[in-house]
């Protein structure tokens, strides 16, 4: 070729991306020279919608920011509102919240592991991981009634109790995952063909992780010991001794590569199982909601004023919701931030000078959740149209097409 570099777009729709997002790469041979990130293909204007809803309606909206983080966003949101309005949560509810949040973490990490294996072209491991994941989805369905979007969280507590009869079932799940963990460790951490593709690939150094404000497993894999569950006491995590997991616990050193991110996630599955076990053994008795009548709760929230921040360690990292309660039913400000938002920038140093073949696994290695990140704008307008279409025009186009088809 006459030119030394050429441009390759990955996205908005591409098999290695689970969600729409555009990367524009400039490539020389097989090496990446420059990267331009262009998110925004998945905007649904969730924060904007929140302006017209009351606090309790927003919980369900927050749950739908992302399907996989559907415990993390309401968790952080509820905590933000509780902090703002000064509502206290009964201890039993705190423990149930943590159980759900940790089950979600197991679910999310194993789902990610499967996706990562698929990106490497290792489909057998994809099927194995997703088979293992079924168990946690089953238990979530038993506990909450849903496999995703659990509908479990409420301001001041949780909506469903864990009954005595359910506890043996959860214990069975814990046993299942203790066994499955060995299998995951064997497949991901001992397998040479995964190591050959992930070691020294997509490196994010300690300094870069700090500078770019990375969160979650992405930051921890680079040696930044940052984990909301460890850093600040909140919910039932305040009663536990949780340590941020860094790859040196397993391999003795920190490289900050994709392999280290795998280590962190696999070890966190084990950690989550231990947390759930602790919660089950120490589950306090008592109420699960501070205020059972929703109408009364809404009244309290309407009167309340103030601002609050809710942080929670979602599977992908710190999720933070900021709520300012003002006059009226809906919050004056609601700001939701998902971990991918912060980790977005870390793609740039990770992908620089890597090969084309590494793009999928490096992109997947931060476990991106574009739906979470892109939550904040207006219309899901077609960016490739020269003009933004109004609803009427779209309707007109649609009618025209129907007519054409009928002829």
């Amino acid at each position, binding site marked *: 070729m006459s030119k030394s570099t*050429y*441009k*390759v*777009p990955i996205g908005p729709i*591409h*098999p*290695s991306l689970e969600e729409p997002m555009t990367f524009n790469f400039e*490539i020389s041979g*097989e090496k990446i020279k420059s990267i331009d990130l262009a998110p925004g293909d998945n905007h649904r204007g969730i924060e904007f919608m929140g302006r017209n809803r009351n606090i309790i309606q927003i919980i369900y909206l927050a749950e739908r920011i992302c399907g996989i983080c559907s415990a993390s966003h309401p968790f952080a949101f509820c905590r933000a509102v509780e902090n703002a309005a000064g509502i206290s949560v009964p201890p039993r509810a705190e423990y149930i919240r943590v159980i759900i949040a940790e089950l979600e973490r197991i679910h999310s990490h194993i789902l990610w592991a499967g996706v990562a*294996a*698929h*990106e*490497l*072209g*290792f*489909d*057998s*491991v994809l*099927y*194995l991981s997703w*088979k293992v994941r079924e168990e946690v989805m089953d238990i979530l369905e038993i506990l909450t009634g849903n496999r995703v979007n659990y509908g479990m969280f409420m301001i001041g507590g949780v909506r469903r109790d864990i009954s005595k009869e359910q506890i043996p079932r959860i214990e069975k799940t814990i046993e299942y995952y203790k066994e499955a963990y060995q299998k995951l460790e064997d497949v991901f951490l001992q*397998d040479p*063909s*995964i190591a*050959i*593709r992930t070691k020294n690939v997509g490196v994010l150094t300690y300094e870069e992780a700090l500078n770019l404000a990375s969160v979650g497993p992405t930051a921890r894999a680079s040696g930044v010991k940052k984990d909301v569950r460890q850093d600040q006491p909140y919910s039932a995590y305040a009663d536990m001794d949780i340590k941020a997991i860094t790859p040196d616990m397993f391999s003795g050193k920190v490289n900050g590569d994709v392999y280290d991110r795998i280590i962190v996630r696999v070890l966190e599955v084990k950690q989550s199982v231990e947390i759930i076990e602790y919660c089950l053994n120490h589950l306090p008795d008592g109420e699960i909601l501070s205020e059972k009548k929703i109408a009364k709760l809404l009244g309290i929230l309407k009167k309340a004023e103030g601002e609050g921040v809710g942080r929670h360690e979602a599977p992908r990292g710190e999720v933070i919701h900021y709520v300012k309660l003002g006059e009226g039913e809906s919050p004056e400000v609601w700001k939701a931030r998902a971990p991918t938002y912060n980790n977005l920038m870390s793609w740039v140093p990770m992908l620089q000078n890597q*090969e*084309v*073949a*590494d*793009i*999928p696994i490096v992109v997947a290695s931060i476990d991106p959740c574009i739906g979470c990140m892109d939550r904040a704008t207006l219309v899901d307008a077609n960016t490739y149209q020269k003009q933004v279409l109004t609803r009427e025009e779209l309707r007109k186009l649609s009618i025209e097409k129907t007519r054409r088809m009928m002829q």
Partner: protein
Amino acid sequence: MSGSGMLIFLLKIVGALVIAVLGVIIGLFYKGVDRKLAALMQSRVGPPIRQPFLDFFKLMVKENIVPENAVPWVFNGAPVLALVSTVTILYYIPFASIPALLGDSGDLILIAYLLALPAIALVAGGFSSGSTYASIGAQREMVMMMSYELPLVTTIIALGWRLSLAYPGINVFSLEILSANPIWNIVGPLGFIGAFFLLFTLAIVTPAELSIVPFDIPEAETELAGGILVEYSGRNLALFELANAVKMVVMASLTVVLFFPYNIAQLFSVSGFLATIIDILFFFVKLFVVIFFEATFIRVAVARLKINQASVSYLIFLSTIGLMGLLLIAIDYII
């Protein structure tokens, strides 16, 4: 042309058609078996064995799209070339006790060349489709070709050379002669190990020829969205799929003919028509075993390599193994 010559000529044409159709059917069948077995190993239900046939018919009725900035004659010609060249190889391979259709006019060297043709067709098709993904895929396919040709040729040369030492003065690259004199019979213990190395080399070249995991780098679904084939659809894609299915049979038959040409009809002390049928059935069983180990098993057990990793493993590691095989056979002959 005399009457009998004319008859033979006609018979050969009919035979060519029959072999082409049978080759395609057998290829698609084995492809279905391969998919089903892979699914079972991955604890999935998997598609029915007839799925490749359904896929083929579906693709045939789909619209055949030629991209705007493609070069149409190359783009459309490439799949035809790929299929024709792979089917042609079938005419040179003896099936069980049935001699090859064109056995007297071509040998292993010709097959080595014909094997490169589908890959070249793919590269031409990829470059002509005018897509960045396809171009990257085509570049990778070229690198792959350059990498796996050396070990492949090493194997072929080693076998022929050893045979020529044993029987001077015959065409040692003729598949008839190669399959009549299996390498295992003419070498000593050291040569036996050498021959095993050669078998291993051929077995690892096969996944690259068929571009399956771990060597599906030119197609790399998650990286290049199908890479070299990304712009192909409809009839053209169907032809590539057929070519790939036939190539699977070709590569497996080659392994069988070169290394496991034994027949079992004598064991049952039958002869004539019945013996041929038993031999053919046995041949299919051998094909199945070879495909299972060379394609299905490898595909399920490992992750995709990067292009430089694949290139290094072929050019350095596998070539070394092939040359060691050659060396062992040589030492075995000398002592």
